[in-house]
């Protein structure tokens, strides 16, 4: 397995091997699916749309509906304007979306299609919307695309009426529907009214009913996006993912924002709750306090199995950073942190985290890839690997226990329904991690050391 990967360091600057990121449009598509009645539209060659729908479907095991401008060689030469126009007409005609959310591709970006102008030239039916975002695949990653699409919804739609709606805008970041549900539950328990954008719960984890819904019940409604401009505050989860849309809302409608880390683990969920609590007179309900206390109790109980265990984590930057803090809370050593998404903040934040927990000898890298992570692991091994499906080759090659978390998970089921965020998500994650480590202990123990009580 991965026999060509050698531990010797090599200064590789051009060839990307086993990436830990993908391209912007898939992130934009996922964000657009989190708006109710929205048809994500890929402005480019139809293969992009096919790849992205395939990938999202494989992660969520639910339909990922989106359309394409279906560029051919002609469009690539003469521009995609007429393709977009035809697309809009056909989409509104046949699929009747409330809103079409266009994202570009490396093709239309390289051609230089001016989406603003193109959309202005399109005859949009009354009560319908068409928005766009620029998502050149050769910049950033799928996280950037998610961020861009979210910001564009705000840029196009949100308005400040001058009167507060007494709500909080929640930008959840690139997480699963199960995570969004848990973030919303926490806000509800705190009795804080909110609008979440995007909100893929009820879309990408929709129930089986015997009836296919092109636009499932879930998703942020267009009216809600409009009203984001009247929110009191934006809670933006994940600086790398959500700062930009939060800033957009601030610039456009003057809604102040707070950047929060993805609320994975105790401290980061605490931050979320404290942010909510600062908005309300109410005390934090016992329900949350109890869950928190349970998670602390669990972490103390399991520490003999987690303490000082070395972990390698890869995936999306905000996810990796929050997973890293949680494993630190568990007493583990986040030996290697890798994201494929570029950006200096990731490394800075990781270093801050190592410092905060007094860790030395840990490495973090943005714009990294799994080949390099694997090299690191070959040089000094870890006790656990956490990340998406692509880690399974490394896990097998190096015989490391593997916990799947993050995006994409295309070789397992159910993960998208259940949260990693919040104290509840912490319990689940703690169970996955401890289970993986203890199963390994059991597997590797000599017969005489195979224990009934642990």
């Amino acid at each position, binding site marked *: 397995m991965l026999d060509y990967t050698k531990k010797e360091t090599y200064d590789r600057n051009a060839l990307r091997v086993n990436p830990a990121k993908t391209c912007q449009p898939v992130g934009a598509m996922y964000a657009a699916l989190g708006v109710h009645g929205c048809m994500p539209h890929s402005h480019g060659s*139809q293969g992009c749309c096919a790849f992205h729908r395939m990938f999202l479907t494989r992660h969520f095991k639910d339909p990922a509906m989106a359309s394409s401008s279906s560029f051919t060689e002609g469009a690539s030469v003469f521009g995609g304007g007429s393709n977009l126009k035809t697309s809009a007409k056909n989409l509104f005609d046949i699929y009747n979306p409330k809103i079409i959310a266009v994202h570009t591709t490396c093709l239309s970006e390289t051609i230089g299609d001016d989406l603003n102008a193109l959309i202005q030239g399109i005859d949009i039916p009354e009560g319908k919307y068409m928005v766009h975002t620029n998502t050149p695949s050769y910049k950033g990653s799928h996280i950037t695309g998610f961020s861009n699409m979210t910001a564009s919804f705000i840029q196009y739609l949100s308005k400040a009426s001058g009167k507060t709606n007494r709500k909080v805008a929640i930008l959840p970041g690139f997480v699963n529907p199960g995570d969004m549900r848990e973030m919303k539950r926490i806000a509800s328990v705190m009795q804080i009214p909110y609008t979440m954008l995007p909100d893929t719960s009820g879309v990408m984890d929709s129930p089986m009913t015997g009836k296919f819904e092109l636009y499932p019940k879930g998703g942020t409604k267009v009216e809600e996006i409009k009203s984001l401009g009247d929110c009191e505050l934006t809670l933006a989860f994940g600086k790398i993912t959500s700062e930009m849309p939060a800033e957009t809302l601030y610039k456009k409608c003057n809604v102040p924002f707070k950047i929060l880390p993805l609320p994975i683990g105790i401290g980061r969920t605490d931050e979320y709750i404290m942010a909510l609590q600062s908005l309300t007179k109410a005390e934090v309900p016992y329900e949350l306090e109890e869950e928190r206390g349970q998670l602390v109790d669990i972490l103390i109980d399991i520490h003999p199995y987690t303490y000082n265990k070395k972990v390698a984590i890869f995936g999306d930057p905000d996810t990796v950073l929050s997973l890293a803090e949680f494993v630190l809370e568990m007493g583990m050593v986040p030996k290697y942190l890798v994201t494929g998404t570029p950006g200096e903040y990731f490394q800075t934040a990781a270093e801050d985290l190592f410092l905060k927990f007094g860790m030395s000898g840990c490495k973090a890298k943005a714009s990294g890839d799994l080949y390099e992570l694997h090299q690191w692991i070959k040089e000094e091994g870890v006790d656990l690997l956490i990340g998406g499906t692509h880690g399974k080759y490394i896990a097998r090659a190096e015989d490391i226990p593997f916990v799947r978390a993050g995006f994409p998970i295309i070789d397992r089921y159910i993960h998208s329904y259940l949260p990693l965020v919040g104290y509840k998500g912490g319990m689940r994650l703690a169970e996955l991690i401890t289970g993986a480590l203890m199963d390994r202990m059991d597997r590797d123990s000599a017969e005489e050391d195979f224990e009934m009580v642990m």
Partner: protein
Amino acid sequence: MKEMNRVLDHYNSKVYKNRKEHMVAVGNNDNNNEILANVRTIPGIITQRGCCYAGCKGVVLGPIKDAFIITHGPIGCAYYSWGTRRHKAKKGEGEDNYLQYCFSTDLQESDIVFGGEKKLKQSIEEAMDLFHPHTIFICSTCPVGLIGDDIHAVAKWAEKEYGIKCIAFSCEGYKGVSQSAGHHIANNQLMKYVIGEGDREITNKYSLNLLGEYNIGGDGWEVERLLKRIGYEVISTFTGGSSMDDLKNSHQANLSLVQCHRSINYIAELIETKYGIPWMKINFIGVEGTIKSLRDIAKYFNDPALTARTEAVIADELDFIEQDIEYYKSKLKGKTAAIYVGGSRAHHYQFLLNDFGVRTILAGYEFGHREEYEGREVLPFIKPDADSKNIESITVEPDPKKYHLYLSEEDINKLKEEKLIGYYGGMVKDMKNGTYMVDDLNHFETEEFLKILKPDIFFSGIKDKFVAQKAGVLSRQLHSYDYSGPYSCFRGAVNFARDIAMGIYTPAWSYVKAPWKAAPILEGTVGGEEAC
């Protein structure tokens, strides 16, 4: 016919006009079942089709285990085609196998602005340092064509610099109208730079190429097992599980078998012209299909011992699966299916379904051409359009040294007349009147046809699988076999039937409707707002 019209009636006139030509109510039309295929999808219509890159890198080149494929472009395309198609390959001794890896130049904005050739070259240098491959393929994605990187020049440079084989494939996503363009581009380059280069010694005269078999879920291995049992030698499989060396030696075979007609028929034709090897359309999907194919091959080689061995193996394989086949037939008989997949499977799987008494009521190809629907007899009547003209067409001459005939020209011509070789009859001849053939079946039509025709199973791909299932219709992926397989030949038929049966009989279907949706709401006394 009326079902088809009910679907079409939703369209505006422009779309109606276009889509109408992609649909055939078999035996119930005044156009001799003629269909429109291999043309552009209308923008905004939710198609399941992919692109040229997917057909070239994803389908044809991807399975070649020891070709080090660098996707030249932004990261996405390489990423999506990493380990996501189930073309299996074993690493033999002394062989390379890069299937677990994904290589890309991961082009950045500055590369788009200033050109990506430099980064491509450096990537090749790094690949040579770290992996020492003997063969590098360069596959370009959309922007590369636009910014004008000369990947073919880079390939030449690499061959010179490193003494390796390096082939460039200009398979930008926007080329052509579907994956089909990519197959063509891949085929052309393999023909130009790979086939015919080998000099492996072949002693078995019953030597075959297995073309258009990508070893999804191990299909190719099962075919090979069967052919070997009879006494054949499979020199090359295009391209499932093959090494470069296998492909290089394909010119030495005495017969080319064509499984997926769409993706590989170019090569089959060119090999025949250049090396004298006839090709035969076979089909190893389905029990009856497999038996017929084996007998046809034996007929070509025309050796009584081989024929006897063929019959003995058929009998033995049948014996092995007989009980299972009967069992699953009892579970599946009378069910109906709709099939919408790639360039030949929608045809092949009808045979397999037929083995179990499952009727196919709708079938279509995602990227087939008219000949896959109507048979090669329509070839002279297909007018190339702008999109197909853009794809290079190559011609070859007989190779003075390597051209060889196993049969006499006379025998070959006889077999061609019999349509045993050099011919493919297409799908429509095997479809019953009253069924439908739909090309480039899109999301809207899928939804509508499922509602109207109510098949028990919908065979398709991952993108529409859950669309069907949400609507309560079992869906199995026939691109990837839903992570099962092999489905080919005798034993594969049992695997297939097992998978279909478990899908149909899986108890969860009976829970779709919540009981409270059926039961009346009683007037209770506890709870509700008043009590809380």
